């Protein structure tokens, strides 16, 4: 299998799906000539031309809204929101229109569209360019929410998201764009709604998403040296959430730590912890510990930003707590 980075894997998925389906188009700010601020769409304009790779003005409501309208009229838009933080100027078209149309219309609508967005802290981009907002999207019926952690997952899930007939919010942690990994060549899909066990273990289950999968795996390595055998579950899709895989892991380990980068309060981890507390309560041998960002905007200064992001050490402490 070829090795490529996360951004290249996403680029590859775009290319293959655009070749496969002439009705797939890409639109967003700087996705064409510039190739996307993070390079994800680079080369697409040259290969597919300006009809299918559309640079837009700065107009998120219209970028998302035209995608919704175009999707109902037969196209498969893949639109880029440069930073997920910008959703505040475009949310209505996503959650009141795209997400609800099918239901409001009694099932007689199909809105096959993907809204890609970069997310996450770590590059000193401060409070309006560093958020993780997956919990907001998860709470909205009609949307699917995908958040990959590896290049292979990124390619397989984006391909599947483009083929899905529902509006899919596809969240790309910006720190992951540069990470390398083996990626299957050619068309490759991963079903939405299936979690992946990134590391098998019998003592503790850590459910982690996006960048935190890597932090959790690093913590797991250190813990194994201390004889603690950690299982790391990556939901990959947050809505629909693969509770089955999470619960069966907990049934094996009887201990759960949930870690994500977004703010802990009312974050995606709350849903995961609450579901387990409801459906696998008797399997638990310890309280469920959640790790997430503190209840504050993302600070600019790297000194603060690093303290803001959940760390390997915090995960290790949490695991030790639930093992105690």
């Amino acid at each position: 299998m070829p090795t490529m980075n996360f951004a290249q894997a996403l680029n590859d998925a775009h290319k293959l799906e655009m070749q496969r389906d002439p009705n797939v188009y890409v639109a967003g700010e700087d996705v064409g000539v510039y190739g996307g601020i993070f390079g994800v769409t680079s080369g697409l304009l040259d290969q597919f031309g300006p009809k299918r790779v559309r640079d837009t003005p700065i107009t998120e409501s219209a970028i998302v809204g035209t995608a919704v309208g175009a999707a109902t009229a037969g196209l498969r838009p893949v639109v880029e929101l440069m930073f997920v933080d910008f959703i505040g100027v475009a949310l209505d078209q996503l959650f009141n229109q795209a997400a609800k149309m099918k239901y409001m219309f009694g099932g007689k609508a199909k809105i096959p569209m993907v809204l890609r967005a970069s997310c996450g802290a770590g590059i000193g981009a401060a409070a309006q360019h560093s958020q993780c907002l997956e919990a907001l999207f998860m709470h909205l019926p009609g949307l699917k929410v995908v958040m990959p952690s590896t290049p292979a997952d990124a390619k397989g899930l984006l391909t599947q998201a483009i083929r899905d007939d529902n509006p899919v919010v596809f969240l790309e942690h910006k720190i992951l764009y540069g990470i390398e990994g083996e990626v299957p060549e050619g068309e490759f899909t991963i079903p939405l709604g299936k979690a992946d066990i990134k590391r098998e273990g019998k003592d503790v289950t850590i459910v982690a998403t996006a960048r935190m999968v890597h932090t959790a795996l690093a913590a797991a390595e250190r813990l194994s040296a201390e004889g603690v055998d950690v299982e790391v579950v990556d939901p990959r899709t947050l809505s629909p959430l693969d509770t089955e895989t999470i619960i069966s892991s907990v049934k094996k380990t009887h201990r759960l730590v949930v870690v994500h980068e977004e703010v802990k309060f009312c974050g995606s981890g709350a849903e995961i912890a609450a579901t387990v507390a409801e459906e696998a309560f008797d399997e638990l041998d310890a309280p469920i510990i959640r790790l997430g960002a503190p209840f504050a905007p993302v600070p600019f200064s790297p000194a603060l930003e690093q303290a803001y992001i959940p760390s390997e050490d915090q995960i290790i402490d949490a695991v030790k707590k639930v093992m105690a």
Partner: protein
Amino acid sequence: MDLSNELLLNMYVTMNKIRAFESRVAELFADGKIPGFVHLYVGEEAVATGVCANLTDKDYISSTHRGHGHLIAKGGKPNLMMAELFGKTTGYCKGKGGSMHIADLDLGIMGANGIVGGGPPLASGAALACQYLDNGNVAVCFFGDGASNQGTTHEAMNLATCWKLPVVFVNENNMYGISSCTINSMCVPNVADRAAAYDMPGVTIDGNDVIAVYEAASEALKRAREGQGPSLIECKTYRHRGHFEGDPCVYRRKEELEEWLEKDPIPRFEQKLIDMKVLTKERADEIKAELKNEVVEAERFASESPLPDASDLLTDVYS
């Protein structure tokens, strides 16, 4: 432009069909037969009728919260609409949408919309699909004077002009957004004055003159179909009823309403057709009677249809 008698009569029928439907809905709402909010189109019939007379089933429209007229003019079926207003399984949306969300994608109706300014981006998107698929179809966006102050409308118009999309923005300027009068919500006299901000043709016309609407729309739609991009048509009109049923209308003068009742588009058009010898008073009364029956039929269909069952709650969320 000279319009065939057939076209003129069809438009006359459509306007009366909308009027008959809306008038009955008002009564049914008052009787508590229709839940939720209903925003009636009474008085504005000439706009939807004149515009949609230029469209085929393959063309798209985005509608508003005040959507019944747009739907009927675009070919929507009164019985399926009435069943939806009643919240029945036989309704356009199986009872899941209601007045603010009736849609029929087979007729290119992208739905009424509960969000003011929600429609313009959708219509531009449908127009993008028409341009992309090069199928010769177009999209029409109906929106109110109030909606013209929403950012989404600005963005949709700007993007539509940048991309020369085949979309026509039809503004229904009835002078009010609920209680807020246009004199307080915008400083320009006409919504069409804003077309220049996008270098898009903009005209202001008498929205109660169905022929004027038809002609303005056909010109704008011709441009759109020929790839010359979007246009804006502002139709000055008035809603005879409150913003929604139950609105006490404290914000407008009775005299104002009376003036506009004088300009009611239906009697006006009827007289014109009679003068043109295209219609007789007798035929006019027959038509109205037939339409009344169609609405009675629709009502019967609606009331006899079954209510949805709790088991339908979770269906239709995802494809």
